[in-house]
């Protein structure tokens, strides 16, 4: 398939090179135009976006990514009307490190980025990414009408300050640490503890607690698992039926995988030598892993019956004695035995550095300090967050870092560097650390980058799959289960009640404390692969079942009915019977944009076949159904 396309591309490159365009790009500068086809009210002509080089308008300016202009919750109602006209385009030397590196690499390799996303595409994207919600019609209209050149930066600021931001990133952190009611490996009914941890994460995110502090508090937590949130990280990682070393190993493996993005778990069963998976782990031995696990060996978790719930809870305490012993022949790992003549007691030392704990301090607190101060901790974190925003990590998958493959100038023979943009990863890491591990600051930098704001469509010509990891266009992906369900509910106006064990029901899936709750809507959420934070991981994959669900599931068909007063269909028909107004209303609320001219023509002529009021109602229902099933509804 690529022969023809490659021919076109080569032609394209040669044309560009002949213009001396790329040759001149010694500094990371690029020119681009907005994709304006779906951003403007229909009265304004859609812009021609064939040419990636556009004139520089006088109002072009660089958004100051650190100029936080405090504003109220997401609301653009106060903003000024749009200035209709030519597409927005700028030329600049980028100040944002994301742009310097991403556009710089493209320029160096002769890859042409697509155009800037239109305002409507941007707004829906940034709201879904930062808050897990789609904009409503009023927000879309106000944003499109806003003429301020920095309106995107202003919108990002208000989203970062919103409650929905805390909900969405609580879901993210809950996924990361796999906070869940019960696990396959321990079967402990932990709903009250799960709720406590969820509340702790929510409060931490809302308050802007530094990410490293959150992790230190989790890893070193003491106290009552039902009263306090943080101890549940330990409880969730218990393995019943095994030996106690299984628990220590699990905690070592999980802290490595989740907080360092490394599969150190391999060396929990065997030495690294001969291991083909990870060059760094090859250098490690099972003893290195045991030493890391030994940091957990002076903590006791005492199971006690909680009178209020009649469930078992756990109370974590740190002791000054206790060792990791090589004395097992059973459990979930191969036998743990010392080498001949060696003691069976393992002294703790950090896997990455060999650092030993300072005397007189709790072992886990020492481990948490070493873990969170190692550069790989911040690298893993920024890479996870980058993936949330850009769809693919700079290192991907983000939990499979090989520390010997990070520096492109210092690689083992024959190896390729893991990061697509090594310098960007370094810079984001440094900025994250310098900025006090602040999630919002990191997201502000990412969201304000022009690279993040590129269109999902490739305007310059035929697309080449090899440009995906250049981020030459937005990586289109399926909206995760919870925001997709919430988008369906919000667009239709028909909310659901989602039940939660040992807590009050919620009305949005993004508020669920884990991915196993929700009651009735669980069928929809499971079809969209929210996973169970245990044996089934969250997935952005697509399937026949998802298509069946969007076409025929009650979660959708009950939301198109004209006979249900709350639906968008019913409310719209109550306000107007005019096909063009119905079309605009449904598009704005469902897809967060106005219809294109062609779409409007199709939809209006379809609605006009509804010659009686009941028939128009049916046609409007069908239009609503079609918009819920448009790829654009479930993908962003």
């Amino acid at each position, binding site marked *: 398939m690529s022969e023809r396309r490659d021919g076109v591309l080569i032609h394209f490159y040669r044309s560009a090179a002949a213009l001396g365009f790329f040759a001149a790009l010694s500094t990371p500068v690029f020119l681009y135009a907005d994709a304006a086809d779906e951003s403007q009210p229909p009265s304004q002509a859609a812009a021609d976006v064939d040419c990636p080089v556009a004139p520089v308008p006088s109002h072009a300016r660089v958004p100051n990514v650190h100029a936080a202009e405090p504003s109220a919750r997401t609301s653009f109602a106060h903003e000024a009307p749009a200035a209709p006209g030519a597409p927005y385009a700028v030329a600049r030397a980028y100040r944002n490190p994301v742009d310097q590196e991403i556009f710089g690499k493209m320029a160096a390799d002769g890859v042409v980025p697509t155009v800037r996303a239109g305002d409507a595409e941007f707004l829906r994207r940034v709201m879904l990414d930062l808050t897990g919600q789609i904009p409503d019609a009023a927000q879309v209209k106000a944003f499109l009408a806003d003429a301020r050149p920095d309106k995107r930066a202003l919108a990002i600021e208000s989203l970062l300050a919103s409650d929905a931001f805390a909900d969405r990133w609580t879901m993210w952190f809950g996924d990361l640490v796999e906070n869940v009611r019960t696990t396959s*490996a321990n079967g402990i009914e932990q709903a009250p503890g799960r709720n406590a941890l969820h509340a702790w994460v929510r409060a931490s995110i809302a308050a802007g607690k530094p990410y490293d502090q959150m992790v230190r508090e989790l890893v070193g937590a003491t106290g009552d698992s039902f009263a306090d949130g943080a101890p549940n990280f330990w409880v969730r990682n218990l393995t019943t039926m095994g030996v106690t070393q299984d628990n220590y190993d699990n905690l070592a493996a999980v802290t490595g995988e989740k907080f360092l993005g490394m599969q150190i778990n391999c060396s929990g069963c065997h030495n690294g030598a001969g291991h083909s998976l990870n060059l760094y782990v090859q250098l490690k031995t099972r003893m290195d892993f045991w030493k890391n696990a030994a940091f957990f060996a002076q903590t006791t978790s005492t199971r006690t019956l909680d009178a209020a719930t009649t469930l078992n809870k756990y109370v974590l305490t740190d002791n000054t004695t206790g060792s990791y012993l090589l004395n097992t022949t059973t459990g979930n790992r191969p036998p743990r035995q010392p080498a001949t003549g060696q003691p069976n007691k393992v002294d703790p030392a950090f896997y990455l550095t060999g650092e030993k704990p300072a005397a007189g301090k709790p072992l886990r607190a020492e481990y948490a300090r070493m873990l969170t101060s190692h550069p790989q901790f911040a690298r893993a974190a920024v890479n996870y967050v980058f993936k949330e925003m850009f769809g693919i990590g700079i290192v991907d998958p983000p939990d499979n870092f090989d520390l010997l493959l990070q520096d492109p100038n210092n690689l083992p023979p024959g190896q390729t560097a893991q990061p697509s943009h090594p310098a960007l990863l370094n810079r984001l890491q440094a900025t994250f650390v310098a900025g006090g591990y602040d999630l919002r600051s990191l997201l502000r930098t990412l969201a304000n980058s022009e690279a993040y704001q590129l269109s999902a469509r490739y305007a310059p010509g035929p697309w080449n799959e090899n440009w995906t990891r250049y981020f030459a266009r937005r990586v289109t992906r399926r909206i995760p289960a919870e925001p997709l369900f919430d988008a369906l509910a919000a667009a239709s106006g028909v909310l659901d009640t989602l039940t939660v064990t040992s807590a009050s029901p919620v009305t949005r899936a993004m508020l669920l404390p884990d991915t196993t709750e929700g009651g009735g809507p669980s069928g929809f959420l499971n079809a969209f692969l929210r996973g169970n934070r245990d044996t089934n991981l969250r997935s952005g*994959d*697509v*399937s*026949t079942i998802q298509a069946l669900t969007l076409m025929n599931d009650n979660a959708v068909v009950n939301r198109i009915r004209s006979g249900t007063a709350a639906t968008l269909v019913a409310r719209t028909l109550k306000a107007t019977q005019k096909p063009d107004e119905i079309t605009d209303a449904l598009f704005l609320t469902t897809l967060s944009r106005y219809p294109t001219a062609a779409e409007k023509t*199709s*939809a209006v002529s379809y609605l006009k076949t509804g010659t009686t009021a009941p028939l128009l109602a049916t046609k409007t229902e069908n239009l609503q159904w079609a918009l819920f099933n448009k790829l654009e509804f479930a993908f962003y």
Partner: protein
Amino acid sequence: MSTKKEICEACTLGGKSFPVFGPSFSRRRFFELAGTGIAGSYLANTLAPPRRLEAATSPALKGTARNLIFVFMSGGPSHSDLWDLKEGAWTPAAFAPTTFGGNVRFAQGLMPNISQHLGRITLLRSVLSWAAVHSLAQTWAQQSRNPAGVLGDIAPNIGSVVSLELAAQRRAGDVLPGFIALNATPSKGSGYLPARYAPLVATGLSATGLASVKPNAYGGAAAFAERYGLLQTLDTDRAGAPLGDAPADMTDFYGQAKALVDSPTVNGLFSWTAADYARYGSTSFGGAALVAKQLLAANQGARYIQLTVGGWDNHSNIYAANAGLFSQMKFFDPAIGSLLADLEGAPGAAPDKTLLDETLVVMLGEFGRTVGAPNGQGGRDHFLRTGVALAGGGVTGGRAIGVTDATASKVVDFGWSANRDIRIEDLTCTIYSALGIDYTTVRHDDPIGRGYEYVPFAKDGVYKPVNEVF
């Protein structure tokens, strides 16, 4: 020592290497080459997964079965009452044991319908579970791998592997997904494999079928067709993949979902007549067993059915008249009895075979229950020793493999070539072998690049099929 076929899709696709970031390939290209779990006519000409043969010697495979029904008895059924009956003062008279296969005792009174098919059933009695924790052992049984192990969270369900492996056999018009789960959601989905190999989960079935495949879910078939037509007109992103792989894949899946909705037979396969429903015991599990038979008999692409049924965790009152095993068998026995009878009465794909000849039915739980006299509450608690029942699919029935002591606590004779306990991994090797799938396969497309073994350590000979069942 290791023989083995290794699959590396990422490295061999198209024989290309991509210069910038190392091996990379279009996910769509992957699907085009890898076949599909739910192809229908759209991808009927797809190729089998490319395979890299590292050594020529794959193990001998039985290939006696086309289909598999995995009856998962969640909760841990009492092996010493069901598949390895040990009689004592506690045994209710209503068990009315019979003897078959020479000296194999069976509670005919408890399971009168299943007893009709003992000639097709082989009981495995030297089986040992790995864990006596429900959730852990349940997941372990469904993915043949320790959930707490290194690949535990990304491992696919056995049914997803089967769906992937048998995808190459799909014909034009095979509209059903390869893997369908009925009555309850399995513990495990497709793991790291693409979602097209995930089970189509159908719970809460009724006589009128499955809402999601009905053309008349809202407004009738004509309304559905009109809506779908409008969608095609409005959604210009469905042509030419302007947004990349994932939405383009979704477009294909819409086509396949539409084929399911439009099929004149599919919804009928998920519904039933009152008479059939009554024969299967008039319960949700009976209805699910009936649907399982209908799906396989239709021969439209469904190859692996998981039927999950709970209620076996009988810590108390296991022998009470309207509780415990009697209560369970009121629905389980007629459902399985009728399932086996109907499979035997239906023609297979091959002219000289019945559907039962071509369908391996596996009945198992996550572990067994304590043996001898019941506990203080008249029940039985969690126990690692357990049993498994197999029927059809090339299994030689009318016998038991393995002999246990007087209480079904310890093994006296393992009864198979390995001369050790049968583990779930061995049973999975047996299932794969019966279906003609190389159980020593190692895939190299897992996200961490470790290599995914269909059955861990099988390539090293640690686990192997119980060929004695055939």
